């Protein structure tokens, strides 16, 4: 009789479907996964060490490069942490513009997720449809801060500059255009038989396990836990805005897909409200020049498109932070990949990686 043997298969760091340099060592029995061991660190750049050697303001561009697909929320988390450390009040107009940037960034990041996830599973069209809208958002960013991807668009105490002439009208044009485009993406995938066969019941995780693994963002909400940092620990002016938090029922890949699609619609709603409510005023808090906080430590988190992104800053009285620790949502979410993939086929690993929406820049820092 034949022995059943496990095969160790390397899904190497160079792979079109791993969304970056991720190495997965799969142990398989035929085509069924027995275990998944992720090896990361191929993009480790020592960001936390670099933070300790530069002043607080000089660290802001470093944060862009962590989750390079969603730079505005990275900036927001770091700058928010320093403001919490120092007790700086950000002017209201700056807070509204920050939220506009963050929600535009959330839509842009989810479009990348949708395009790449669908591409991995064989659907090529959503990528092209989505990137057409993403170009509009990136053009808006370029007009505002000069950069499309690594924005560096926030400063400690507010923003670097006020919005250009007519920028808010162009945001309004985007907001009015987006819902029908979102419906186009839905028409491609949501009722698609192949999509459902590939994603329903793949990568299921229960709500208790999801909290235990520390999942946040759409992986947590897809399992039915209605928890969002913008609601649970509101920051900036989110407590004044009206938006819903979508959740899923089964905790599978299809539910996480639906959650992210709905999040895009809710982000659009938030943008609409911000455009109505934005006041005139200052763009940055006054008097924030040399930052030398006394010894203290804080933690501040935001709802990044990938989950809860937090910064712990420990200061020691000098103008450079003593220790900055990033809580990367993708790092913590990726840990659960073994639980999500166990018993599935190799092709489902690709679906699970896509649904976790990982960006190696954030995992490895």
């Amino acid at each position, binding site marked *: 009789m034949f022995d059943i043997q496990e095969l160790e298969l390397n899904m190497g760091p160079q792979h079109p479907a791993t969304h970056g340099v991720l190495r997965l060592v799969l142990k398989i029995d035929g085509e069924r996964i027995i275990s998944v061991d992720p090896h*990361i*660190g191929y993009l*480790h750049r*020592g960001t*936390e*060490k*670099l933070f300790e*050697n530069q002043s607080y303001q000089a660290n802001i561009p470093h944060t862009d490069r962590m989750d390079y697909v969603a730079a505005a929320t990275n900036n927001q988390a770091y700058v928010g942490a320093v403001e*919490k*450390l*120092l*007790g*700086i*009040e950000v*002017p*209201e*107009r700056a807070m509204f513009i920050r939220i506009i940037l963050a929600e535009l960034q959330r839509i842009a990041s989810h479009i990348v997720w949708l395009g790449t996830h669908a591409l991995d599973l064989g659907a090529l069209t959503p990528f092209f449809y989505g990137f057409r809208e993403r170009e509009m958002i990136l053009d808006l960013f370029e007009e505002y801060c000069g950069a499309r991807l690594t924005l560096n668009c926030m400063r400690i105490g507010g923003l670097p500059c006020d919005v250009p002439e007519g920028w808010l009208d162009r945001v309004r044009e985007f907001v009015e255009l987006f819902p029908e485009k979102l419906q186009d993406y839905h028409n491609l995938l949501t009722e698609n038989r192949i999509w459902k066969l590939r994603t329903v019941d793949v990568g299921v995780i229960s709500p*208790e*396990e999801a*909290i*235990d*693994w*520390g999942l946040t963002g759409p992986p947590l909400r897809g399992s039915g*836990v209605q*928890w969002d940092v913008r609601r*649970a*620990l509101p920051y900036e002016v989110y407590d*004044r805005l009206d938006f819903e938090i979508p959740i899923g029922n089964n905790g599978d890949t299809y539910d996480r897909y639906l959650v992210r699609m709905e999040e895009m619609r809710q982000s659009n709603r938030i943008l609409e409200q911000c455009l109505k*409510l934005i*006041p*005139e*005023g*200052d763009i940055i*808090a*006054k*008097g*924030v020049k040399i930052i030398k*906080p*006394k010894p*203290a*430590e*804080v*933690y501040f*988190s935001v709802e990044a498109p990938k989950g*809860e992104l*937090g910064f*712990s800053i*420990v200061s020691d009285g000098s103008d450079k932070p*003593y*220790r900055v*620790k990033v*809580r990367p949502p993708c*790092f*913590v979410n*990726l*840990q*659960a990949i073994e639980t999500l993939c166990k018993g599935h086929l190799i092709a489902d690993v690709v679906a699970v990686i896509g649904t976790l929406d990982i960006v190696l820049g954030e995992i*490895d*820092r």
Partner: protein
Amino acid sequence: MAEQKPPAVPAKRVQPEAVEAWDHPRVVELKEKFAESVLSAVIYAGELTCTVDAGQLTDLCSHLKTSGFTYLVDLIGIHYPEAERPFTVAYLLHNMNTQDRIRLKVEVSESEAVPTVTGIWKTAGWLEREAYDLLGIQFDGHPDLRRILTWEGFNGHPLRKDFPLRGIDTGAAVYEDRYPDGGGPVMKEAPAPPAAKSPAKEGD
């Protein structure tokens, strides 16, 4: 919402003060249940931080988990080279029902190990691996304590304060004699300059 002018920004911003928090209900409860475990309690900028004794850490954490702190947000390792116990590990916990957060800190010396909390929150697996990799803090009882961001065989702990920013010689360089660090010309010496037409002032 009525649109009104935002209040005038104060001329001097005031950094919040750290306040002793011995009468905070959570601290009182922990002191009652686990005598002599809470060494200090501070509230800064709305966050409660308790320094606790490393030996009782797992008991405290299990108790906090059953009282609702089911989500381990982050595990932060900090290196204070001058302190008597140089390594601090901070655990940030979150209660999903009441949205409360609490930070527990333990301090250990180089040779001591921190008890692992992977049995309590599964999140801690990779977070502890990262603290071990970057700082060298040992976690007692961790199922799989190996390096995660650097490679196996890397000699050093990058986030320690005595690790230089520019990096160390990891033994990974190849052909060092031919291609020295930092690049540079491939030739060993510059080619001889072309012979001058009239030596003039130079010697014979």
